[in-house]
């Protein structure tokens, strides 16, 4: 691993101050992705600012009936937190579908949003990659692209965002609280991550020197009718080829409210308001689910090795909505898909 300097931040203001003083620095919390990338020479910070001592480690109910999750709450603690298990089981399920328990014990809530793509070429510094070296080209578009995106791609980049947790946060319409030298602001989850466009080096809209302080979950948790289904090459501890977060509010046999987000298929958790609108006020049935799937996947474009993801996603969306409607969410321990 490359050499670097190490400093500890004592509070949020100190962290922002230290980052502003050294543009070549990076924050480190769980380190599960950053240290890995440093070992591959993909990330080369001059200094790491350790933020693990910041007071951002609690899960609290908000006055508005939601829940605020500190950016440093470990993924495992969040998944098993009684408030999350009870009110936001979609989020628990998605977190437990990702990584391993060791990594979930280390990885932070804020860090999960900021993890980088696992595109093979992003990790391989011997190959061109516009995300790693802007302007160098995309090796994936005409390369081994089985794991890459089929929605929202550009001529510059077909990388996916690898998170499971973020797919659930998108479906739940979480908010991202950030702080910076200019003060605090709140970013809607759909506006946090970016599509690659011609600036694939930017994964998200966090500004330089800004730090995530919390994730806020709104009051509506879809605890009765939800499912997170993750399809991957092995049964556990693998990134998604396709994943689906589905959340419904039902009134008898009718859909009052619907949320639908995909992972593994785009540079960000993939949602489309029109797909969710198409489910609203519909009777629960597979025709409605298929129609929503077609809308959500509209414009999908496969590459040499990943076109299978489009059909796979369509079937997974229908299956996940069925699981949600039936109140039989996918469990993350038994791998049988029912």
């Amino acid at each position: 691993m490359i050499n670097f300097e190490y400093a500890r931040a004592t509070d949020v203001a100190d962290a922002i101050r230290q980052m502003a003083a050294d543009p070549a620095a990076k924050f480190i919390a769980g380190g599960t992705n950053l240290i890995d990338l440093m070992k591959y020479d993909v990330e080369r910070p001059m200094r790491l600012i350790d933020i693990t001592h910041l007071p951002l480690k609690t899960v609290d109910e908000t006055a508005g009936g939601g829940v605020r999750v500190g950016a440093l709450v470990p993924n495992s603690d969040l998944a098993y937190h009684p408030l999350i298990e009870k009110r936001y089981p979609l989020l628990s399920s998605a977190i437990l579908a990702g990584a391993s328990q060791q990594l979930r014990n280390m990885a932070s809530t804020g860090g999960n949003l900021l993890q980088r793509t696992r595109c093979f070429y992003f990790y391989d510094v011997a190959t061109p990659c516009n995300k790693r070296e802007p302007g160098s080209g995309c090796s994936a578009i005409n390369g081994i692209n089985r794991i890459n995106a089929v929605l929202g791609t550009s001529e510059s980049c077909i990388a996916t965002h690898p998170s499971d947790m973020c797919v659930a946060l998108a479906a739940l319409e979480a908010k991202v609280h950030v702080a910076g030298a200019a003060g605090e602001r709140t970013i809607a989850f759909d506006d946090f991550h970016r599509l690659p466009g011609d600036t694939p080096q930017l994964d998200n809209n966090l500004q330089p020197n800004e730090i995530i302080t919390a994730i806020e979950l709104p009051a509506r948790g879809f605890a009765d009718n939800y499912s997170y289904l993750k399809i991957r090459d092995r049964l556990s501890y693998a990134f998604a080829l396709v994943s689906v977060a589905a959340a419904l509010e039902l009134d008898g046999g009718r859909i009052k409210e619907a949320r639908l987000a995909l992972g593994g298929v785009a540079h960000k958790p993939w949602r489309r308001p029109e797909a969710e609108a198409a489910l609203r006020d519909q009777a629960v049935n597979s025709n409605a689910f298929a129609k929503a799937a077609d809308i959500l996947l509209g414009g999908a474009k496969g590459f040499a090795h990943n076109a299978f993801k489009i059909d796979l996603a369509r079937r997974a969306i229908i299956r996940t909505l069925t699981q949600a409607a039936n109140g039989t969410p996918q469990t993350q321990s038994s791998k049988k898909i029912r």
Partner: protein
Amino acid sequence: MESRARPDTVSKPAAISVTLYVNGEPSKLAIAPWTTLLDALRDRLHLTGTKKGCDHGQCGACTVLIDGRRVNSCLTLAVMKDGARITTVEGFAADGSLHPLQQAFIDHDAFQCGYCTPGQICSAAGLIAEGKAKTADEIRELMSGNICRCGAYPNIVAAIQQAMGAKT
């Protein structure tokens, strides 16, 4: 890209003083910031029970317990764990007796080459402390961060089930 223009080394890589409480014994180390906990345990404290497999958090051979929680020591910087209580496989046996998990791995022939075993045992201890796994399916899922290339998985699950029974 700006981050690639950095010099190959920082000018004065100062060692930082940390105290690690490893298997109950305090060790004060002056350590470079880029030293992983795995390398500190193996190369500085000569506790070579913890294994380096992939060194990228993909295999689990380096699993240790930090303050009772299982983590990948290969992705942990030692300087970030000043004051932490660390348990490695060397800390399991007590008073000349094997820990129930160690005995269970022997009883069930839960290894072949043995390279992944220290990580499997530390991970299993973390799993039992978490209390989330009850069924064999749940053990398999929550042990999926520990790869065994000899394929001893069925026996590893049986060993963990035995150790879980011994605990309750």
